């Protein structure tokens, strides 16, 4: 049925030409220029030079400062991912047990924030997390703490706010795998003598794993590339890869070094995505195809 291509071989290319032109001119070329920039020599007096060197990469890969920077970013992203799993998976299961009417309402409430600017959501958290903020006041009132906690400009604060930003992605990923579950499989397990907890642990959870994994990849990579939330909640004290790229470009003006960090971030994220995809494929392909 899907022919018509034999006679009209050029048609798909005509149709996609505008998009390809846009992407070549405004995506491929700028990315290539950035890759080249990352090999340029930077002179603190004269700025970016036209000579080429690998020094930027050598500096990043050998300096302990950058090692800690990348490690901090990875730990932050890992923490956010873990929290999203611990909170998002149970919530999605709870959602799936609700009547469709309530499901719809709560879905819009949970996923809707995705469409609200991350700056706005982060502003909300900076109001809540401040020394005089709602959270500290509540904790003091309840007598749980004596002095307000330092949540703003701390890793804890960044992780909390980022978890809020990323949770919808985990819910979406787990929800789509939940949709494919066949309820009769669980019934079969029960009829074979498994209790409800055993059924969940041995039958349902393994089927959810691909969803949790793909949700984790999304959350991890988006956390590692998040900028506004770590910048506003973490400030100068909690520097991550993205905020240091920003500083190299707009404060220090060392563009080649900033470009090198950016390229490494891109490579790192590509490695995480491809690596996890390979694991998913190897482990689940034959079972869930």
């Amino acid at each position, binding site marked *: 049925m899907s022919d018509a291509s034999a006679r009209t071989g050029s048609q*798909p290319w005509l*149709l996609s030409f505008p998009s390809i032109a846009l992407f070549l001119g405004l995506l491929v070329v700028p990315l290539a220029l950035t890759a080249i920039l990352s090999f340029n020599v930077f002179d603190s007096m004269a700025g970016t030079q036209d000579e080429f060197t690998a020094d930027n990469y050598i500096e990043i890969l050998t300096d302990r400062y950058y090692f800690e920077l990348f490690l901090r970013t990875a730990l932050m992203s890992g923490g956010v991912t873990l929290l999203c799993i611990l909170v998002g998976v149970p919530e999605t299961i709870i959602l799936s047990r609700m009547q469709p009417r309530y499901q719809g309402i709560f879905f819009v409430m949970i996923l809707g924030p995705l469409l*609200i*600017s991350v700056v*706005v959501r982060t502003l909300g958290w900076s109001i*809540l997390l401040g020394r005089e903020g*709602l959270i500290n006041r509540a904790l003091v009132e309840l007598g749980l703490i004596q002095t307000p906690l330092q949540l703003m400009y701390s890793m804890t604060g960044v992780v909390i706010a980022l978890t809020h930003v990323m949770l*919808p992605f985990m819910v979406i990923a787990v929800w789509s795998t939940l949709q494919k579950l066949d309820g009769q499989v669980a019934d079969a397990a029960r009829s074979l003598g498994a209790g409800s907890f055993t059924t969940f642990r041995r039958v349902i959870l393994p089927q959810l794993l691909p969803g949790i994994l793909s949700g984790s990849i999304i959350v991890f990579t988006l956390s590692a590339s998040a900028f506004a939330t770590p910048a506003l909640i973490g400030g100068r004290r909690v520097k991550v890869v993205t905020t240091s790229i920003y500083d190299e470009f707009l404060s220090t003006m060392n563009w080649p070094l900033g470009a090198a960090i*950016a390229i490494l971030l891109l490579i790192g994220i590509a490695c995480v995505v491809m690596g996890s995809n390979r694991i998913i494929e190897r482990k689940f392909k034959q079972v869930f195809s």
Partner: protein
Amino acid sequence: MKDKGLGSNGIGSLIFHTLFMIFIIAPLAVIILVSFSDKGYISMPFDGVSLRWYRAILDAPELMNALWISIWIGLGAATVASLVAVPAAIAIARYRFAGRDALMALLLSPLMIPHVVLGVAFLRFFSLMGWSGSFMALLLVHALIVVPFSLRLTLGAIIGLSRDAELAARSLGASRWVAFRRILLPLILPGVAGGWVLSFIQSFDEVTMTVFIATPGMTTLPVALYHRVSMLTDPVTTSVSAIMIVGTMVMMFILDRLVGIDRVLIGKK
């Protein structure tokens, strides 16, 4: 949803769910509350209710300016994105050709590449081309990063649509163009329109990439808001944010009418 053998929600589940929803709603609710404060600084709780911070927006010309730029960029970017993504979606959905998967991967790549990296790349590119501060340049890169959204929703509308109706139109005497305009386009219009609205929202919200390429005179609202929030805690930011929250809710309502909000957010067929 059909029974998935997950049992039903007990009291513990409901408590968990309530806390979860509070966690989700709290930062947004607190912004809207604080925006009505009569105090001169951000504080919670507060005593008197006032609209002074909404009036104050009018006295912040750089925010008003940024708001208009954001709106025009959003409108332009969503339109350009739709104009390039709809034909591409038709090519991908209707033809089998070498490079089809590669084309798809290319057009979806802005979703994979960290926006910081895109921001850096565009900053470098614009400074080499002398496009810094150009409205058109900003509009086009926004169009580029929202193409995936337009593409995905349009594809969702075309895939699953049988080609028979178009073929029937052709054999009844319609040219390719008439068959597209009178048959295919009306049938995929909800998806295309949904993609346009989602693209507008994504462009309007974008901050990470734009913060690199915005210039003092050519700044979008989220970037202006970002700079203001990072420098001083001033309640105008809350009133602007409150308006953005309400505006987004209106857009979500429109999206829901057009394609169903769950379809947009979950991306199911």
